[in-house]
């Protein structure tokens, strides 16, 4: 049974929760925490309904809810999910309650504001993934910046103010150019469709007919905004600052979900809307992706701060996703989609674990640790598990995504060179080096730092947060088809839209 209001509930529930919080006395910390958790948990449960009601055999948008929002401009409130967005929606609703639980003891001041902003952020993120109208998409895309900005700025580390402003300005710069491109596209559409529209299912038909020269510019305007978010080398400089300064919950959401918005945007908008330009730019973006893979890994290797190391590993891992997208084969695109989820799980887990240990010792310097395996066995095991998942050990989730991407890029006709695969594959080796080396320095050996004695292991709450993540890590690693089949039809459709724009347009018109 398909209930068209489900997605709207998903968007509204966290928002209602956020405003419900305003009526709770700010002294009642646990009431606030439970309210936040309650609303995000309900949101997760509803997203499961969406997932189980989703029809894998169709590449069309499902759970569509549409009504006219701004009449004069033909702007619709138009939401729906397909095989690409449903996984990301689930990732969002899955991670948000976990991050709220994880910050149970680490956030001690202004708890009400914190929970308020986390819930607002969840609304924004879900909105980004389900919007099928560019105007609506843009509203969520930008509005989401506000809560993230506060989360970094209020609860962040020492350099939080600098990091928050840098994060805000970088993202804003990219997205405002996208705004101009959106308007241009809508005006262009009014020329050929006869009415002004920002509905992407309509724009899928007309946008590919734009002359190639203009497509290139449009692609860049959209692409810049997404590339900053991903972040693609050399636009990544905001990321280490924001990730390191953000509180644990902020880093998890940033790495887990926010970065995916960039790659999601490339798949949802850039490829289908500007196919000619996508083919033209594919090698260039792939080169940047490969540089990002290697650069991120090399920089991660020399970090002395664990959180920074994980942050740079994101640059490297997201490089794989971008490579997968621009290789434009069935395998690579599906690999990219699954790798987005993988990265959300494994990097999310790593950030959570760094947060766990930081809460106890107040240091993230690798040199301050050593030999904690005996002191905190649960932690040591969890860190091992998350690291191996991030490295891409066969049997765990990271392997599936990276393997599919490498396979797809190897036989990609668009890239037409196996050098991409060769260089990208080196990133897998580097990942093993920097993560295992960090692991060795932190966990093995003798306890050199006397202040580490008496370190407490993970408590039940912290273990409870990790377990669901680990379940999915193993699940995707052993039986990925559960998730691959969800994105299969949608990936095929996106590739089809790139290679056969005219045919797709015709098909879409006939389907109407």
């Amino acid at each position: 049974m398909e209930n068209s209001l489900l997605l709207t509930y998903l968007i509204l529930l966290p928002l209602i929760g956020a405003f419900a919080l305003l009526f709770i006395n700010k002294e009642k910390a646990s009431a606030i925490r439970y309210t936040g958790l309650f609303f995000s948990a309900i949101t997760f449960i509803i997203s499961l309904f969406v997932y189980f009601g989703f029809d894998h055999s169709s590449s069309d948008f499902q759970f569509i809810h549409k009504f006219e929002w701004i009449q004069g401009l033909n702007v619709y409130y138009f939401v729906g999910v397909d095989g690409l967005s449903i996984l990301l929606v689930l990732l969002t609703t899955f991670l948000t309650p976990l991050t709220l639980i994880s910050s149970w003891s680490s956030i001690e001041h202004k708890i009400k504001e914190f929970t308020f902003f986390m819930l607002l952020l969840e609304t924004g993120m879900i909105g980004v993934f389900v919007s099928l109208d560019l105007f609506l998409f843009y509203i969520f895309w930008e509005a989401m910046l506000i809560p993230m900005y506060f989360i970094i700025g209020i609860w962040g580390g020492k350099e939080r103010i600098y990091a928050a402003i840098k994060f805000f300005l970088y993202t804003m710069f990219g997205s405002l150019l996208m705004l101009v491109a959106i308007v241009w596209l809508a005006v262009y559409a009014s020329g050929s469709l006869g009415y002004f529209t920002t509905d992407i299912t309509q724009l899928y038909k007309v946008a590919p007919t734009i002359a190639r020269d203009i497509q290139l510019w449009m692609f860049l305007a959209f692409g810049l905004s997404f590339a900053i978010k991903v972040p693609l080398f050399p636009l990544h400089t905001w990321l280490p600052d924001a990730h390191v300064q953000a509180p644990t919950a902020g880093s998890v959401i940033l790495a887990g979900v926010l970065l995916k918005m960039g790659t999601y945007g490339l798949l949802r908008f850039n490829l289908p809307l500007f196919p000619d330009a996508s083919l033209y730019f594919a090698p260039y973006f792939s080169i940047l992706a490969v540089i990002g893979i290697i650069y991120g890994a090399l920089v991660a290797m020399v970090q002395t701060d664990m959180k920074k190391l994980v942050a740079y590993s994101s640059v490297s891992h997201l490089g794989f996703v971008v490579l997968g997208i621009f290789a434009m084969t069935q395998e690579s695109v599906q690999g990219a989609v699954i790798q987005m989820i993988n990265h959300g799980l494994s990097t999310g887990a790593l950030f959570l674990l760094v947060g766990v240990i930081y809460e106890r010792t107040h240091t993230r310097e690798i040199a301050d640790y050593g030999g904690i395996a005996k002191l905190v066995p649960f932690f040591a095991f969890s860190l091992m598990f998350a690291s191996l998942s991030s490295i891409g050990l066969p049997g765990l989730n990271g392997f599936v995504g990276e393997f599919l991407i490498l396979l797809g890029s190897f036989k990609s006709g668009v890239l037409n060179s196996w050098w991409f695969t060769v260089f990208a594959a080196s990133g897998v080796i580097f990942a093993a080096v920097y993560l295992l080396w960090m692991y060795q320095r932190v966990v093995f050996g003798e306890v050199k730092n006397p202040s580490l004695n008496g370190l407490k292991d993970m408590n039940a709450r912290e273990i409870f947060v990790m377990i669901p993540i680990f379940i999915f890590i193993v699940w995707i690693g052993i039986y990925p088809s559960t998730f691959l089949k969800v994105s299969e039809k949608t990936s095929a459709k996106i590739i089809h839209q790139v290679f056969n724009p005219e045919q797709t347009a015709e098909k879409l018109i006939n389907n109407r």
Partner: protein
Amino acid sequence: MYNNIQEFYNTLPLVIVAAGILIATTIEMYSKKSENILSWFSILIFLASGFYSLFTLDARSVVLQNMLATGGYVNIFYFIFTFSAAIICFLSIDYIKKYDAYFGEYYILMQTSVLGMMLMAGAKDLFMIFLGLEVMSVSFYVLAGINRKRLTATESALKYFLLGAFATGFIVYGIALIYGTAQSTSFEVITTKFSELSGNLLFLTGVLLFLIGFSFKIAAFPFHMWVPDVYQGAPSTVAGLFSTAGKAAAFSAIIVSLFVLFTSGAMRIITPYLSVISVLSMFFGSIVAIAQTNIKRMLAYSSISHAGYLIIGLAASNTEGIAGIIFYLAAYSFMNLGAFGIVSIIEGKEEANLELNSYRGLGTRQPLLAALLSLFMFSLAGIPPFAGFFGKYYIFIAAIEAKLTWLAILGVLSSVISVYFYLRLVVLMYFYDSSEQIEIERSNTGLLAVFISAILVVLLGVLPGSLLNLIISYL
């Protein structure tokens, strides 16, 4: 004067305000408690006039010997003026008490200035524009210096008067040239003769001079010099009125007088002028605002930069542009009123607490005020889902439809710059702890005014269609 009673009804918004002026003057003469009576009386007058005009949008006619248009978008302007003025009156009640600077003419002048604005928005004749402009400006000159005990207020009034008079000179000169070539000051006559006039160099010079004069009034670069000093010196409530209703009035005058040119070839001469001052205003305003330490000066430069965005709509010279300007003016008025409102609430005696540093840590001490001020800052910065974003969006649509994509791109670049200084206030309020406590007097009416503005800013952002459809259908 009136041909029938309906025409009289159509002009009721103006009549209400005009009658209000007379009654208020009488009250002020005979009552000892005029301070309390007049504030609420003016609010009543403004709201009556505003809501009457909002509910009679259909009453479109041209009255008073082709001098004044009524109904349609003119009434939307009336609503913006009167509603802004009402909000300013709410704010003034406690502000004046705080400064202990009540002068009988304060509320009366506010009403005369609004009457002037209304005459400008409805004008069908250059003389009417001039009449309205002078009624408004003279009231403004006095209002700027109303707190005559303060030296800065006097300075501000004098500066405003001298530069304003200078600008009026340009406008009169422009009108003279237009009259000389068209043998009429009526827009209708000018429109019919337009094809022969559009080639006439004297006529175009007149139009350009007219525009330059108004560039002063809307605070566009390079005619902005008075703005920071006047905003800083004038009482915060009055500065709020200048930057919202005053600016909206000047734009309404430009719109009514330029509307006829849009379909003709004359725009090819005016568009470059408008584009250039638009780009310069946007960038100058945003960049210089970064260097300000006084919040009123910062808002003054922000107002210059917003004038730039509004001029994009004029340069686009299509109906989307006009609709965009009107929407933007409404959005801008409410967000700026909110910002000035909070400034006036936080401001202490003797111009204390006006430095940006006074806002340090406000998020902890005054959570409500800080949250509302952040909302206004995000809206001014053009971040969705607030009204300011939608205003910009619509202006950009107009620009791109008019093939002025480059102007839209420069517009967004300047937006990015402006985000920096708007956010800096948010940073100060939330990300720092306050070292010193500042005293803030409670003001219930002031808070109410700010609250109304905030609700309007959110509503116009989330449901922009409600106002936009009105504007489009009555354009």
